[in-house]
Each structure stands twice: as C-alpha cells, then as structure tokens.
C-alpha cells in the first residue's frame, strides 16, 4: 500500500477519492488535509445555504462514516506549512506526513480588490462555509450589505442576503450585469429582476475605498457615491490558489501546470481542480473538475488516461430567475451570433456558432432547451441543416404533443387492459397498491402482459399513473432477463462479431444464463438464421412447440393440421385427400379458416407424421398456419371469372404464395390480392396488400386486422406481375433483416418510417434487387415442405412416446 496525501477537501478531491476507492480500495493509504475545519461538501450549493433555502447538512457530500469506511486519515482545520519534495513529506500545522504520491487540490482564492479598507472586519469573500456564517452573522433587519461584483457569484450572494433580510446593493464595473454572457438588453432584464427583489444595482461602479474604523461602515465609489455597508462581500473573481506549489518549486503559470494525466513538474506530485492550468486553461466550474478526477484516479492506479479539456455550463442559482449558459461566448473573429428576444416575456436567447458548430449558448427567462443546446456543443454536432430554426430548440418541429397518459387516466376500473388474460385496469391498480412496483411483479401477480405482450405499454402507463415518478418508464427494454442488451444491440452484434450459433451468442455477449430462456432463444434462433441463411442450422429446440412440431397445439394437447391451399384455390383430389385424412385419423373438427383453407383440428401428436405422409401423397404441403413466416395469400376471383376483375388476382396471389412460402420472418406475414378496388380479398388490412387496377398493381403495406385494426399505406404502383413479386420479396427481406422479433410489419414500419422503407425497396432499384436476391438465398434453404422432412418413416417413432410402461403393468 502506497501513501497518498491529498491537500484540499474540495469537490475535485472528493470525486477523486470516490473514483480511486471504487477502482481499487487497497491501493493507497490516504491522508486528507483541509484548511477548512470540515470535510468535502458541495461548494456550488453555498448560495442557497446563505439564503436559508438549503441547510448545510444537505450539501455535505462525504460524511464521517464515509471517511471511516474508506480509512481516510482526516486532518481537517489544519493548514499546510510547506511541502518538502526532497524528503517527500507534507508539513502540516500539527505535524508532518510522508507521501509516496501527493495531490494538490487547493482550489481557488478570491481576488481581493486592492482598495483601502479591504482588511476591515465585516469585509468578506464568498468561498466557503465560514464566509457564509460570517455573512449570516451580519444579517439583521435594518442592516446593509454591499456586494462588489455583479457576476454569478455576486448576484447569488445579493439575493441570498436579501432573503435573509438585508438592504443590498450590488456594485458592478461594467455597463450591465454578467456582461461576459449577456448583451446589454439581457443584462438589463437581469438587472430588473434584481430590482424586483429590492436589490439596488449600480453598474459602471468602480470601488475606490471601503470606509470605516473598527469595522466597515460604507463603500465609496470613484464617482463619489457612497453606500452604507455593515457587510461588504467581495465577489469580483477567483484565481488559482498556487502558493504552496510555488513555494516548493513546481512549475506554475497562472495555475499549477499539469499534463493530460494530471502530472505536475514533479513525477510524484499531481494537481487537479481549480488550482491547475491545463493546456493554458484554468477552470472555475465543476464539470471539468470531475473529468480531471476521473483521469487522475486512473493515473494514480497506473492506468492510461488523458484529460482533454471540458465543455462547461452554469446556471444562476437565484430562485425565480432562469439563466443558463454553456460553452464559449467570447466575441472573436469568425464567430456568428444568433439572438432571439421576447422582451414582453422577459426572454433572451443567444447562440454562438463557429463554422457549422454550436460553441456557446446563453438562455435567459426560458431555459427549457438548455440541456439540448449543451449536448450540441459537447458533441460538436454539425448544425448547418438546422441553422434557421436552431434557436427555437428541439421541439420546433412538432406542434403541442397530445397528453400521452390522459386516455389511460380516463379509463374506468372495469376497462380491460390485457385481452389475453382478461385483466382490467382496477385489478392492475389493486396489485400495484398491494406492493407490485415493477412490471415483472405486476405480470406475475395479475398475468397482465404475460402472453402476447401487446398491452405492455398500457400496463406501464397504469403503473406510472398510480406510482407517479417512483415508477421509471422503461426506455430501452433489454431482450429478456438473461441480458441487458436490447434486441437491436444483439442483432447488430451478431452481425458485427460474426456470431453464428446460440452458444456463440450466449458466450460472447455474456448472457446471464447458460442457455437463455423461452423468451430469447426463439428470437436468437430467428436473428441467426436471418443473418446467416447458409451457415446457420435452425435449432428446433429453440422454437415454440408449434414451429417445432409444424402444427398448432390446442388446449388439450392435440394439434391442428392445415395444408396449404395456394391462393385459396383447391381441386377435388385435394379435397378428397383432406376428407380421407379426417376420417382415417378420427379428426373431431374440420373447419374452414379465415385464410381461405381447411383446418383439421384435434389431431394426436403421434398421428402427425402419418397424416402428413398421406397429405403429401396427394400433393399437399404444410400451410405454415403456426409459423412466424408466410401464412396465407388471400385472393378474390379476378379477371379469370369476375366481371369486375382488372387483372388475374388469383394467379398473382398463387405466385406470391409460391415465392414466399417456407420463409421465417420476425412475425407472421399475411398477404391479400384483390382483383379490383372493390377489394373483396380485404387486401388493405394485410401486411402486404395488392389491389389490381387497369394499369397494373397498387402495392400497399403495414396493415393490421387483429388486436389492432389499421389500413395499409401506399408503397408503390407496379405495372407488371414481375415487379410486384420483386418489390414484395424485397419488402419481406428488409423486414426480416431489420425488424425486432415479434414486431408485425405495421409495428416495424411505424418505427423505421414508410419513407425509409420506400427508399430501400422501391426507389433504389439496386437496393431492391439486392434484397430480393438475398431473400432467394434464404429461400434456397427454407422454401420446402417441413412435413415431408418429418414424415419420413425413420422419423416417425420420435413423435410417439418413448416407451409405454402401461403395457408392462397389464402383465
């Protein structure tokens, strides 16, 4: 264990120690010196403590327990006499401490204006809690205070003293307050806000002397004005506190000079915070100090780290005044200002651009977009496209957003939220009030959102309504409990890391479980087969029972068998084969489906292969009525027979079905082809719908007719059948490659935007052809009858029980 001595318990050193102990608690034995008789606290919040709006206890960042837990030797209230770099010893007022590494974090010292009277009792600066206590001691009704300096700190001091009952005057050298950030018009607004608080503002005031005998009594300005002053606060600026560093011979310019790893000119001595100068810059705000602390913690642990400077932002902490500034707003060549003023509302906004980048922002009176502008500055975003509307903020594009939760709030308790499980709003609220505070708990308790998942968003809204901001609306949902990655993350990583099997995924992506769960395994199986159609072997054991057994499981454990009926067209031979199978295997119900085919319901698992073989013999193949893949292509009669038919809709429907059948997709896909705009095939509520017209075919997509009903949106007009087939294949392939597993096409299009889909599938011919080609590659593997595969004689035993021990018993 090495010895680390830290001089200064300000915000930078507090953060440094946190980072250091978090990374390696046993690397250093730490001694922490502080001239103030107390530990680390949030110095930025001293202004509200002065005003009485916060208590000191609330702003302490590290308390006795924290120091004890991390075994920090605290030497608070002890000044440093000197640093002896030869002996590697720090000499404190109460004794010396040897060091292996030393960190100087002495912060800043306030400028003291060189006027007569500056040393009188009653003249204070505003750096620490002791200053605040002195100021509060002077407060009393009828007492006067003069604050010299109308920048952020001076104004905060003035407002605080005013709230505590003093008569306050602010003296400011420049023509208007906060002249570095604000132009005269905005400075005027700010001055008015101060005056509304009864604070007198004297601009263009230069202090000549502080008058008084035993203590300060008044302040005299160069223009002969005097203001009575029982208290004088000097808030004219700060400079790095470098005395100790200077005395021990370290390189010091304006601040203690450090490199990117926070080394000083001595290899065992480091510095951070307001006392340093890095790449010729000194910082007086907190974010850079945190960035420096992160780097220094790494350096102290022998790891590489580089501090590269920071973007800074500040707020004025005067209750009722909204002011936000960020970045660099100095007037320089090559910079451009965009200013917005609304004097009626007291709003002023100024943006400083250099080239195509935002480098500074000042917002007065309306700071709602502050964080957005700051991120544009930090990310150095190219704002050339947004120049015209930049000043209006991120919300400029939309109108007022509809109140998202009002509809759910208005639902009565009996309203059904989860259709699959019949759970109403009242039941969900009851579960929440009974203690279920996470979605998983509500699911487990009520079953809501535990089946198809469509109502999950609604359940989350009911939770937000009931729990308030105690419930965090999830933003990026992880795939399942096995990982923190989202579906999109995993898809991308499968591609970029070339992961070609489920074990590769669970291994490389650090799954929390050995082989996933019933949620992620089917999703992974799909993503893998979509990404690597030729290399990946489909994993049956990662499929739901329906897809594994190629038949729909019913509630009693029997299955439904649906042979394909291409485009809804059949033949007498096919019908006979279906009827024969129904009789041979004692099928309890034969039913016509909405997808224009016939369903044999109630088939026993062990009979499936034999039934399939019989159906195959008549030329019938699997209808994939159970798959996340192509289900059906509904057709109406069309020009073959119908007097209104403009094209051969039936023929086209059959061609489409033959193109797409067998493919696996993120969720089921259903098509419809209508022979004329009368739309007898109901094509306009399908995933892909085609309406035949005289000039050709109108393709539209993203419809829905299940739990949600939605009309399709126009995608393209195609003159030939070939083009319809190509566009449809491209659309389906794009869907397969980019959608989230279990998102129907309408959900996917809503997420990615129809315009983008159009661009890839319709407008960009090369992209369309490439997508259709990739679809064909995938189909070369999957466009085949699964029944035929599993009906083979040697496979049949696998569909029956492993053994029948009831026979033994009969013996």
């Amino acid at each position, binding site marked *: 264990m090495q010895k680390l001595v830290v001089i200064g318990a300000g915000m930078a050193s507090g953060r440094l120690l946190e980072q250091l102990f978090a990374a390696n608690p046993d690397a250093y034995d730490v001694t922490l010196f502080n001239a103030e008789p107390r530990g680390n606290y949030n110095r*930025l*919040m001293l202004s509200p*403590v002065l*005003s*009485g*709006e*916060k*208590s*000191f*206890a*609330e702003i302490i960042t590290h308390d006795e327990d924290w120091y004890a837990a991390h075994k920090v030797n605290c030497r608070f209230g002890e000044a440093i006499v000197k640093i002896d770099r030869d002996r590697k010893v720090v000499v404190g007022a109460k004794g010396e401490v040897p060091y292996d590494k030393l960190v100087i974090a002495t912060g800043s010292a306030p400028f003291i204006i060189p006027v007569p009277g500056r040393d009188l009792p009653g003249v204070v600066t505003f750096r620490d809690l002791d200053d605040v*206590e002195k100021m*509060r001691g002077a*407060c*009393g*009704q009828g007492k006067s205070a003069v604050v010299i300096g109308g920048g952020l700190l001076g104004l905060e001091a003035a*407002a605080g003293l*005013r*709230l*505590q*009952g*003093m008569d306050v005057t602010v003296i400011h050298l420049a023509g208007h307050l906060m002249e570095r950030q604000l132009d005269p018009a905005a400075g005027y607004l700010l001055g008015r806000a101060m005056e*509304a*608080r*009864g*604070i007198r503002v004297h601009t263009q005031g230069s202090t000549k002397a502080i008058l008084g005998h035993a203590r300060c009594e008044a302040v005299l300005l160069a223009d002969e004005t005097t203001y009575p002053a029982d208290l004088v606060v000097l808030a004219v600026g700060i400079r790095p506190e470098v005395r100790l560093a200077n005395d021990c011979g370290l390189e010091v310019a304006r601040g203690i000079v450090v490199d990117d790893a926070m080394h000083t000119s001595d290899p065992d001595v480091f510095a951070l915070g307001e006392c340093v100068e890095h790449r010729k810059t000194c910082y007086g705000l907190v974010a850079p100090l945190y960035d420096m602390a992160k780097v220094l913690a790494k350096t102290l642990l022998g790891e590489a780290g580089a501090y590269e400077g920071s973007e800074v932002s500040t707020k004025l902490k*005067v*209750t*009722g*005044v*909204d002011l936000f500034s960020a970045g660099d707003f100095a007037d320089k060549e090559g910079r451009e200002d965009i200013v917005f003023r609304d004097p009626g509302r007291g*709003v002023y906004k100024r943006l400083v651009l250099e080239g195509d980048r935002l480098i500074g922002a000042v917002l007065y*009176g*309306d*700071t*709602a*977009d502050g964080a957005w502008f700051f991120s544009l500055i930090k990310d150095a975003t190219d704002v050339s496209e947004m120049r015209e509307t930049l000043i209006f*903020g991120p*919300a400029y594009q939309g109108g*007022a*957003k509809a*109140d*998202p*939760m*009002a509809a*759910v*709030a208005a639902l009565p308790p009996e309203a059904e939220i989860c259709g699959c499980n019949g759970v109403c709003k009242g039941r969900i609220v009851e579960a*929440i*009030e*009974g*203690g279920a*505070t996470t979605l998983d708990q509500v699911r487990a308790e009520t079953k809501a959102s535990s089946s198809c998942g469509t109502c999950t968003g609604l359940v989350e809204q009911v939770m*937000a*309504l*009931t*729990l*308030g*901001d*105690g*419930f965090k609306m999830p933003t990026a949902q992880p795939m399942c409990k096995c990982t923190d990655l989202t579906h999109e993350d995993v898809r991308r990583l499968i591609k970029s890391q070339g992961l070609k099997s489920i074990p590769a995924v669970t291994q490389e992506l650090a799954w929390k479980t050995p082989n996933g769960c019933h949620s992620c395994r089917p999703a992974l199986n799909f993503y893998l087969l979509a990404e690597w159609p030729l290399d990946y072997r489909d994993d049956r054991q990662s499929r739901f029972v329906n897809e594994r057994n190629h038949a729909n499981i019913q509630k009693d454990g029997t299955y439904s068998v649906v042979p394909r009926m291409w485009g809804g067209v059949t033949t007498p031979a096919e019908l006979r084969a279906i009827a024969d199978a129904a009789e041979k295997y004692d099928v309890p119900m034969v039913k016509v489906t909405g997808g224009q085919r016939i369903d044999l319901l109630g088939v026993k698992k062990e009979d499936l292969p034999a039934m399939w073989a019989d159906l195959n013999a008549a030329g019938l193949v699997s209808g994939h009525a159970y798959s996340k893949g192509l289900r059906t292509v509904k057709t109406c009669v069309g020009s073959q027979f119908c007097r209104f038919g403009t094209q051969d809709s039936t023929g086209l429907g059959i061609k489409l079905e033959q193109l797409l059948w067998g493919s696996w997709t993120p969720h089921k896909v259903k098509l419809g082809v209508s022979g004329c705009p009368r739309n007898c095939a109901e094509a306009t509520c399908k995933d892909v719908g085609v309406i035949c017209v005289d000039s050709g075919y109108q393709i539209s997509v993203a419809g829905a007719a299940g739990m949600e009903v939605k009309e399709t949106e126009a995608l393209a007009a195609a003159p030939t059948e070939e083009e319809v087939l190509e566009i449809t294949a491209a659309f389906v392939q794009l869907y397969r490659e980019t959608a989230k597993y279990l998102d129907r096409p309408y959900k996917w299009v809503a997420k990615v935007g129809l315009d983008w889909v159009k661009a890839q599938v319709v407008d960009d011919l090369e992209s369309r052809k490439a997508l259709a080609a990739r679809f064909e590659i995938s189909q070369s593997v999957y466009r085949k009858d699964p029944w035929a595969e599993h009906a083979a004689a040697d496979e049949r035993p696998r569909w029956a029980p492993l053994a029948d021990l009831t026979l033994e018993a009969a013996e």
Partner: protein
Amino acid sequence: MMDAALDAVIDGAKLTFVEVSEVWVPKEGRLVLAEGDYGRHTDFAKASGTESFAPGEGLPGKVWAEARPVVLKSFEGSYFKRTEAAKAAGLTSAVAIPVFAGAELKAVLTILCADGDGRVGAVELWKDSDGLLMLDDGYYGAAKHFEWVSQHTHFPRGQGLPGGVAASKTPILMRDLGAGYRFIRADSAGKAGLTTGLGMPVPVPGGTSYVLTLLSARGTPLAHRFEIWDARAEKVGRDGGAVLVDGICAREGALWNDQTERRVLPWQGYVGRALATGVPQVDGSGAAGIAGGYTSIVVLPIHSDGAVSHVVAWYI
C-alpha cells in the same frame, strides 16, 4: 447552527402540525367534498362527508365568494359550520386556500391544525401592497408573544420568506428563516423560535397577490416530506410535465439533485394528476403511490398565466 436546521424541517419522529386536509370542488353552484384526509379523526370525517357550501357559506364558501385565502384562528362563534365536531376532534384553527385558474375557481384546499402537545407552528397570510408584503392575518398557536407580531408586520419585496416568494413568484421552502423570525417564542417550545417555513403564492382574480406561509419551530415539523415542482414551459419545455426543483424527506434526506433531473408527466402519480387537472390532490390511505412510504399526501397546484406553474406537495 445550520446543521440542525434540517431536523427542524422534517423530524420524522414528531407529530406534525397539520391534522386534516380537504379538497372542496364546485359542483352545481356549491362546494362539495372531493377528497379528505382526516387521519384519526373519524367522527370529524363523518361530519364533513355530508357537508356542502354555497358561495359565502362556511369557510370554503367565504374563500370562494371573497376570492382570497383566509386564516381562521378560532372556530367558536365564527362562520365555521363544523365547530362542534372540530372541537371534539381537538382541531383549533384552519386555513382555506382557493385554487384559481384565472377567474375560474378549481377547488378550495382547507387545512385544519391542532396545537397543544407541545406543537408550535404558525400560519400567516400576506398581502402584496405596492411592493410591500403586509401581514393580513396570522395564527400562532401556542405562541403568545404579540409584541413580536406587531414588529413583524411587513416585508419589502425580496426580503424574508414572504418577500422572497412574492418577488420570485415561486414556492420556497426555507430551512432557516434567519434572525428576523427568531424573536417569536413559545413557552413550551423553548428558545428556538420559528426556524423553518414553506411559502406559497396564492393567485386570485383581481390582481392582488397573496402569499401563504406555514412556519414551524424546531421539533414540531409541518410535515415529514416536502416537494416543490416547477411546471412552467420555460423550465420543462412544451411537452408538459414538471421537474422537481426542491425537496427534503425525513426518510430519504435531500430530494433535490443538481446533477440529475426528476420529472413527472401529466397524470403520472398524485403530482401528475394535480398538474393535469389543476385540482389539489389529497390521500390519507397510505397507498403505494405515496412516495417515501408515508400515509398522507397533499398536493397543491399553483396556476399562473393560464397553466399550472408550480406544484407543492407535503407528506405526513
């Protein structure tokens, strides 16, 4: 001095000053009870459930008709309708706060207090008169030093809690009221005087500005948890919602955070509901949505320029 200020505001162990909170809403020309938290005062609850008030009638009706908040210091012989029931419950004073959105009355929030048991607190009503906040009325419970009160009758804008609230037009929770408030003494509360206070603007039609302050002494907190939310578009943007700007809790400590922002959307929880409806919310059932695990919550929305600008919540 300052370290103990936090205890004074929110000491979780002690009984609080406020005993009963009610929300009265206008319905067919009368004020009817929408919500009420009566704590252990079940008889008073029963007596109140069937009440309703015409404009001018009783305390809520008076506040409606006169379009101003009212502090009622003694029920006996006054226009208060439920005097007998209040006496039986040990309730001694009341404040009625009208919630106006422009000229429309959305609700009246009534707060009933009990003193005794060593509880010391004050409720003050201030009126803005040409930039000077004048004490319109005040209830000081067990404190009996009226000389102080006669000194303490006005604050210029920006000065003291009432002046600060009037100047900034926002609620303020002061942990340490400062020297000006120290002079009030109560025989049973020791030498601490009144140290902490919650100040709120009470907008009413007609241009007069009122500020309501609820003050407490060390050891007798107003409530166990406070939250102040800012809902102005200049702060939260056009998407609505409100951001927590200040708050402390006896259990969770400081709720404000200068690094991360806490936000609610309209309708989200009690604060969201007050934000969306513009009507105060009161719940004494200890439901899961009441933060901090407390039994009761009172949420007061404050309107300005046609929208809810701030929301104040306190929990018992």
